């Protein structure tokens, strides 16, 4: 594909953002994004992820001292129109006064690309984003999913060095979101462009990101591959925000977690009076009562289809969520055994609760 393999490396250096009214949207953050990488900024609303994206785009200026570099070149004071970035907005920002084709071609027209070449490029992108046949439609005649595709086609038409996506799937309904997510993933891999993707949806972040930056209250909580942030969350917030997690607080004696339902060996663990650990529901195996390491009572059973979610009390200080195979027969009130591999228990730094 003609668009493959271009993109700039991005570095932001000590970029913070304080708004005019004094609210701090982003603590000074430093971040490197490699050429061709897809980086996801993930976090709940108000965590500063959109502000960081807008600083990279050139729609916001970082506070004094912050720097934005593309391929090592300082772009901090360069306005967005000269940064050669493609951007997809949450509301798409398609121009209602233009047709689909004119929207896609607008950036090329600005760059003085000849009419024939523009038409060829539009045709290429229309095919790439599966919107063939809609070229002459007005924007208000498109469905949400179609608008999303037009917005993406328009953003990549200019062969940007960096593609910036601000919650591009949030405005769509759930089924469409899932379908477009895999489509987007395929497209981003094919384009090979440096991509920064903002979302609050951890499933999107997992599927699309080469790396994920988990953000919280204007600060970076953790940076890592999807596997790293899932299996080795740095703190309780990351553990709970990404996937489901049982957070258990209990004393540790010589590498063994002391729980009401039994003694659970863990990998690392000096003796301490109060440790915080994370156990993912799918790492807990259900056994017959009396077998296994822990013992507990089934509090509730939710059949989800591909699996069932049990809530088991008495095993730990708090009820444990357990993902069990859908074939297991468990009834409320049953006493069952649970076994957990030592390496599935992740020690988290203890922190004051909030």
């Amino acid at each position, binding site marked *: 594909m003609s668009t493959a393999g271009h993109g700039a490396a991005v570095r932001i250096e000590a970029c913070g953002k304080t708004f005019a009214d004094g609210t701090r949207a982003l603590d000074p953050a430093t971040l490197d994004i490699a050429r061709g990488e897809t980086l996801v900024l993930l976090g709940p609303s108000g965590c500063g992820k959109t502000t960081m994206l807008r600083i990279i785009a050139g729609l916001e200026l970082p506070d004094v001292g912050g720097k934005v570099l593309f391929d090592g070149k300082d772009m901090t004071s360069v*306005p967005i*129109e000269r940064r050669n970035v493609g951007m997809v*907005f949450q509301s798409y*920002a398609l121009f209602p*006064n233009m047709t689909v084709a004119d929207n896609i071609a607008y950036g090329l027209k600005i760059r003085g690309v000849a009419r024939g070449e523009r038409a060829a490029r539009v045709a290429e992108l229309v095919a790439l984003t599966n919107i063939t046949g809609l070229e002459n439609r007005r924007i208000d005649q498109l469905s949400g999913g179609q608008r999303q595709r037009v917005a993406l086609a328009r953003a990549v038409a200019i062969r940007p060095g960096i593609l910036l996506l601000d919650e591009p799937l949030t405005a769509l309904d759930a089924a469409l979101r899932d379908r477009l997510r895999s489509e987007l993933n395929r497209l981003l891999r094919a384009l090979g462009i440096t991509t920064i993707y903002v979302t609050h949806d951890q499933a999107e972040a997992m599927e699309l990101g080469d790396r994920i930056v988990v953000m919280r209250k204007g600060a970076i909580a953790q940076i890592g591959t999807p596997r790293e942030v899932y299996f080795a969350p740095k703190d309780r917030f990351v553990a709970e925000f990404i996937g489901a997690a049982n957070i258990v607080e209990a004393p540790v004696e010589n590498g063994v977690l002391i729980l009401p339902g039994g003694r659970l060996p863990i990998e690392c663990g000096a003796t301490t009076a109060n440790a915080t650990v994370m156990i993912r529901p799918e790492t807990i195996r259900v056994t017959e009562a009396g077998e296994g390491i822990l013992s507990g009572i089934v509090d509730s059973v939710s059949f989800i289809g591909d699996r069932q979610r049990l809530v088991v009390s008495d095993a730990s200080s708090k009820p444990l969520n357990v993902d069990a195979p859908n074939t297991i027969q468990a009834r409320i009130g049953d006493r069952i055994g649970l076994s957990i591999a030592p390496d599935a228990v992740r020690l988290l730094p203890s922190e004051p609760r909030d």
Partner: protein
Amino acid sequence: MRDRLIFTGQFIFTLLVAAFLVVPAGLSISAGVTVNYFRGIQSGVTLQWVAQVWELYAGTILLSFVIAFATLAVTLLAGVPAAYALHARGGRLARIVEEIITLPLAIPGLAIALALLLAYGSFGDFRRSWLFILVGHVIFTMPFMVRSVMAVFATVDIKTLDEGAASLGASPWRRFRDVIVPNALPGILAGALMVVTLSLGEFNLTWMLHTPLTKTLPIGLADSYASMRLEVASAYTLIFFVMIIPLLVAMQLLADRDHKR
């Protein structure tokens, strides 16, 4: 049966109210083409009064149009960018500026005229030219342009469209031309018709600001009411109607088209 009665009652009441409002206009128009109003329509129908008005007051009609379109040009050139700037900037300062622009709606035209005379009355050439009236009309009509354009900006999320165009490489001027103005067009058109209509009919301000050589249509109308036969003044009204009604109809059509979209 009962519903029918209620409906008929409401219908008759509506007709009566409409007649109450329309009859004076109809009488005035008919007076303008009657040979002798006091003898009534049986005295004959004539266009001589219309012709006479045209002879005496063609200049005022022309000047009214010159001022109306000059007012339109100024409110377009200053008002549309101002509306964009106020919308894009937002915040308290923008609110204050918007209030100040809107203020002339609440202040009597006479007071604005008096202030203009106090401030600029001593610049003789300016005072004597039609530009003096133009200034008054711009002050009076600007809020209508700014407000109707801002109303459109509020509904189409112009800020994000602007950012979208910027991300595609468009300079501020290109964005204004390609994206902002086309998407604000319904508001600009509505504002433009309002400005022209208001300027053509403006009396308060103009009455204070005019000189014997810079009379507009409504001033001429007052003049003819005061000093001419009733038939002449009525013929004048007729001419005014003929000019203003197409503008009002256009305004209505435009509003309808917006609702449909």
